[in-house]
């Protein structure tokens, strides 16, 4: 199959492809790499804190006791507005309670076992989601990179008229850029459905906030929550007058009796200990892409209805499907492994894109050792900095300033590459990366 475009269109598309690719390359590489690693977000948490209590399930009464116990430790703090209970699931068989002030694991009997310590997993997720930039800015920037990935996929297909016809041809052993170009083109064409799905869902998540602000400005009198409410449900009005703690256990009993096929993943207690408190239970529906359905309960445990993510409007089901489709947590370990492999392929596609461009310039006699050295620093320095950050987490503990460590390491590696471009830092960085990977393995096993 070959797609017919004029020679001029192909050349323009190639220029567009290169322009977007080179502009986005370094940060897009970081986003793809962290996205690949964070597929195992649940597993990283278990590696970080191997001694946290684990259980296949937890009884409703134990959850009720745990919620009460956690709130009892916060009497000297401002009232928490939301309390989240992470229920044990296959990938992360732990019960964890998070409030505005703390996150703790609880045992199967409902007693507090100790603080949650997953700083590296959270750092990694934050790096992928927001590039560690606080607020909506980081998320929006990452969303823009999703848009650029979509444009790259489109321009890449137009720029390479034989890309489908040659889809099974990989001259892996050819020198002088042929092999590199083949790797780039083959991996990109065969991961195209995956790349498009990830780029689209990623940009939907990243640009969701600005989209919601736009909707709020145009249709909801600047009320952003009102723009989300038709999809994810409304926030109830608060009534801060004190009241006995809500019956959280009743929601679990109700779901077990009425929907035994569903798996509760989260309980959200809004405004606990007040008259305005209410409970939301999120339950996973098997063999669905949606992250779950939200079931609503009053403080007395009575069922009030569901939001409709599982069987409501098509838009609700679509919006609720973006997260699982993006993060690959809808089919157990096999799907996660597939996501890691294809995520790695996408990372290689981004990496090879700039390398191909640099190679072409070199073949035309334009040698730019500093550019080449800086690209080496990106390709090998970012995974090195990530690995060293992980080692720092294992050795220095959960309180280690991981964000600062990572970005300072990145800056140092890039500056070194810029000031001392020759000899090329590639080999040195590769060796350091292997050493740091071994060090992290040893740190996990004996740390």
């Amino acid at each position, binding site marked *: *199959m070959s797609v017919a475009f004029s020679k001029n269109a192909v*050349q*323009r*598309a190639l*220029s*567009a492809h*290169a*322009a*977007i690719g080179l502009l986005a390359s370094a940060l897009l590489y970081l986003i793809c790499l962290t996205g690949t690693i964070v597929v195992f977000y649940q597993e990283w948490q278990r590696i970080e804190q191997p001694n946290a209590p684990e259980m296949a399930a937890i009884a409703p009464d134990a959850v009720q006791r745990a919620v009460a116990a956690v709130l009892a430790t916060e009497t000297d703090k401002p009232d928490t507005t939301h309390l989240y209970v992470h229920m044990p699931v296959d990938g992360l068989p732990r019960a964890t309670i998070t409030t505005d002030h703390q996150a703790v694991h609880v045992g199967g009997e409902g007693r507090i076992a100790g603080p949650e310590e997953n700083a590296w997993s959270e750092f990694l997720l934050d790096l992928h989601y927001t590039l560690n930039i606080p607020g909506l800015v980081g998320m929006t920037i990452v969303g*823009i990179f*999703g*848009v*650029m990935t979509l*444009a790259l996929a*489109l*321009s890449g297909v*137009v720029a390479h008229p034989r890309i*489908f*016809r040659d889809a*099974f041809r990989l001259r*892996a*052993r*050819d020198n002088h*850029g*042929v092999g590199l*170009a083949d790797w780039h083109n083959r*991996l990109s064409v*065969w991961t195209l*459905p*995956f790349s498009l*799905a990830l780029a*689209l869902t990623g*940009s939907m998540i990243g*640009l969701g906030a600005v*989209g*919601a602000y*736009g*909707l709020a400005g*145009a*249709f909801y009198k600047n009320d952003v929550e009102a*723009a989300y409410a*038709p*999809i994810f449900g409304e926030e109830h009005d608060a009534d801060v007058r004190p009241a006995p703690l809500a019956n959280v256990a009743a929601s679990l009993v109700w779901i077990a009796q009425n929907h035994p096929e569903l798996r509760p993943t989260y309980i959200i207690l809004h405004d606990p200990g007040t008259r305005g408190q209410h409970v939301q239970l999120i339950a996973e529906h098997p*063999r*669905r*892409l949606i992250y779950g359905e939200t079931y609503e309960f009053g403080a007395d445990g009575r069922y009030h209805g569901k939001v409709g993510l599982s069987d409501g*409007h*098509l*838009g*609700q089901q679509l919006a609720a499907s973006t997260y699982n489709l993006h993060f690959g947590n809808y*089919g157990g370990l096999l799907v996660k492994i*597939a996501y890691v*492999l*294809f995520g790695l392929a996408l990372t290689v596609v981004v990496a090879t894109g700039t390398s191909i*461009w640099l*190679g*072409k310039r070199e*073949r*035309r006699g*334009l040698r730019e050792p500093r550019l080449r050295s800086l690209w080496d620093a990106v390709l090998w320095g970012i995974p090195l900095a990530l690995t060293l950050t992980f080692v720092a987490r294992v050795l220095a503990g959960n309180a280690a300033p991981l964000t600062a460590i990572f970005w300072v390491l990145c800056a140092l590696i890039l500056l070194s590459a810029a000031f001392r471009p020759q000899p090329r830092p590639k080999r040195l960085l590769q060796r350091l990366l292997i050493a740091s990977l071994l060090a992290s393995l040893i740190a996990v096993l004996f740390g």
Partner: protein
Amino acid sequence: MAAIVAAVLQLRRAWGLPRRSAVQNATAWALMLAGAVLALAGEGAWGLAVASLGGMTAAALLIAHAGWTSPRGKARASERRVHMLPGSGEPRHIGRRLTTFLFIVPLGFAASLLAVLGARALAGMAGWSDADGNAMTFLLLPLLWALLAFWLLMRPSRREQLAWLAAPAAAGLGMIWIGGVL
């Protein structure tokens, strides 16, 4: 999933033929379509997602085999220029590059946002629920922006680029205004 994997194998066969065969190609794409429809009908979006992963895995294995067995070749790599950076002695065109960035990123975003909000207003007038209309906005915003970014970069003149920015923005604004009036 079996049909999608079979489609990938058939594509491998069809594209490996010495001469192009429309029948062989069509068979592969028909299998692909049938697999997608069956997955969607049987297990919904979940089924389609899992079946797609199966197809891509099959293709990855074929590619791995092609790479493993490929002989060392003598082909010359492409040297097509992409004009991203100037050659030696060529002007840098910093202003032109910054203008392109301005057109693609902030203006492209603004035009896309206005256009999708216009589509949302149209959906409202057509009786769509708020949930469907708002979800469509979230879906269309990145899609439209990506298409617009690509299309703008394909246009040869600034005048054309401006026209392609102005058209969706004006249409969107018009729809929002009409939606507000009605």
